[in-house]
């Protein structure tokens, strides 16, 4: 029995490492390709070991871009992605936490209808209403702007529901106590509720940042200027040209740079990430 248990454990380790290898292989290949010469790759003669073009490729990728007509330094694309994802994450948390505060801590006419109006947005991802949304953003002259990139993606209820849920678990005694201290709605929110919500906000931020950074369809539609491209859109344009002209080392370096920030966040802030993922899952 004991020996069999040991054997089973051995099998478990092997299966897990096979799983990890399958998951990691495409990325390993990208790392290798980003350090090699484009000619060897284009010939189908790519080596499975890293080459010597690491610095050269990454310098070109970050500061110059591809040699084609739509050249745009990837560093600039990353900056656009960063601004967009920060605006989405911070914007969503900010508007959600105050509306949840209003819904939980105040009684006012139309409170429930307003709650339902916000709640129902859970139902529809941006993908199903892209063209009408595009038209509105165009009418508001927000194409090729950070506001146009981020505002439509802020319109969703997940964060509001999460904060509402959390506020309901905050003991009433805290409000009574701060009221005795003479605190009004602003002081109570700022001094009591906000510090208590810190972990929730952090978990939510991690998830929203990743989701924002990885947006694709929406930025693809509303950015036309090369200097407004996010990295996810930029990488697609790099392989638009015929295969022979695609600079695969640069494409692969861009792919790795595109996954670096969100993967870093997942690995380093794993606890917050898991918490955020479980709590925001709708």
């Amino acid at each position, binding site marked *: 029995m004991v020996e069999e248990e040991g054997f089973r454990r051995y099998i478990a380790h092997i299966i897990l490492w096979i799983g990890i290898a399958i998951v990691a292989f495409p990325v390993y290949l990208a790392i290798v390709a980003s350090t090699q010469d484009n000619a060897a790759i284009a010939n189908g003669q790519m080596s499975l070991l890293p080459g010597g073009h690491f610095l050269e490729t990454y310098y070109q990728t970050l500061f110059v871009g591809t040699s084609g007509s739509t050249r745009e330094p990837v560093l600039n694309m990353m900056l656009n992605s960063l601004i967009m994802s920060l605006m989405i994450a911070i914007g969503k948390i900010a508007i959600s936490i105050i509306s949840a505060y209003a819904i939980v801590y105040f009684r006012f006419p139309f409170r429930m209808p307003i709650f339902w109006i916000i709640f129902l947005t859970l139902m529809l991802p941006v993908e199903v209403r892209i063209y*009408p*949304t595009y038209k509105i953003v165009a009418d508001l002259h927000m194409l090729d702007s950070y506001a146009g990139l981020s505002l439509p993606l802020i319109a969703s209820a997940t964060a509001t529901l999460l904060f509402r849920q959390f506020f309901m678990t905050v003991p009433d005694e805290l409000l009574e106590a701060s009221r005795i201290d003479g605190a009004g709605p602003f002081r109570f929110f700022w001094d009591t509720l906000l510090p208590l919500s810190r972990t929730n906000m952090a978990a939510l931020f991690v998830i929203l940042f990743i989701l924002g950074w990885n947006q694709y369809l929406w930025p693809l539609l509303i950015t036309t200027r090369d200097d407004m491209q996010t990295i996810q859109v930029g990488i697609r344009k790099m392989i638009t040209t015929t295969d022979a002209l695609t600079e695969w080392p640069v494409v692969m370096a861009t792919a790795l740079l595109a996954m670096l920030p*969100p993967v870093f966040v997942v690995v380093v802030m794993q606890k917050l990430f898991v918490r955020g993922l479980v709590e925001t899952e709708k």
Partner: protein
Amino acid sequence: MRPAIFPDLMQKQSIFQSKLLPYALVAPQLAIVLIFFYWPAAQAVIQSFLLQDAFGLSTSFVWFDNYLDLFKEPTYFEAIVRTFIFSFAIAVSSLSFALLLAVMADKPLRGGTLYRTLLIWPYAVAPPVVGVLWIFMLHPSLGVLARYLRAMGVDWNPLLNGDQAALLIILAAAWKQISYNFLFFLAGLQAIPKSVHEAAAIDGARPMRRFWTVTFPLLSPTIFFLLVVNIVYAFFDTFGIIDTMTRGGPGKATETLVYKVYSDGLLGGNLGGSAAQSVILMVIVILLTGIQFRFVERKVTY
């Protein structure tokens, strides 16, 4: 863990009194939701009942004609069937592989947290990047794996062969979703009390039997939840993968419903038809979300 859906059941006893402040607090979110959510959704519904003439000069109300036209179009029907096949294939392959890994990682192994870290990061890889990674690996003329496939005598060319293109999309999409499924399966497995396993072991059930008769049924709420999440994922989040790998091609072999809305919209022209497509997608999402909510209520009583 999920936010309570029916807020009336619980209310704060202790509240603030203010007439205007609460409106000011909900105003920003309400404004954004109305402008960027309800307005476009309403536009889509209205437009789906209208027909515009070729010059965009006049529009007329045509009831469900746009919808009927859509279903008469063979390519639309094919896209529906294809989307469901993709969803099913992605969900089943990704779920079963993730479940296998989660069951292995649930054992008291040395390095358990390391395994988790090494398996969950693909969640953070964006769909277009997934597409780029996979097409590079399996590109007919330069892909490393394509080389081996050809050496084994497979006539591999997903850029020309529709079935191979579909397979490629399914594999890439399933790959990305492994991490998510793994994480939720692991949480589900860890929530099963150890005493249940011990009881079954004392009854003399072998590990395999124990899995199918004890673990699997106890895990069914997680499986069902993940099934819905995976289908929604396959419907919507595969857009980036498809767009970077095949652009819906060759022919229309990898065109899903969302991809079709996008590509038909790019061509311009038929506004009503495009809106009708959007509305059908909305109905599908609402149905899927509804199923999921029903299930969650069951999980609470479970």
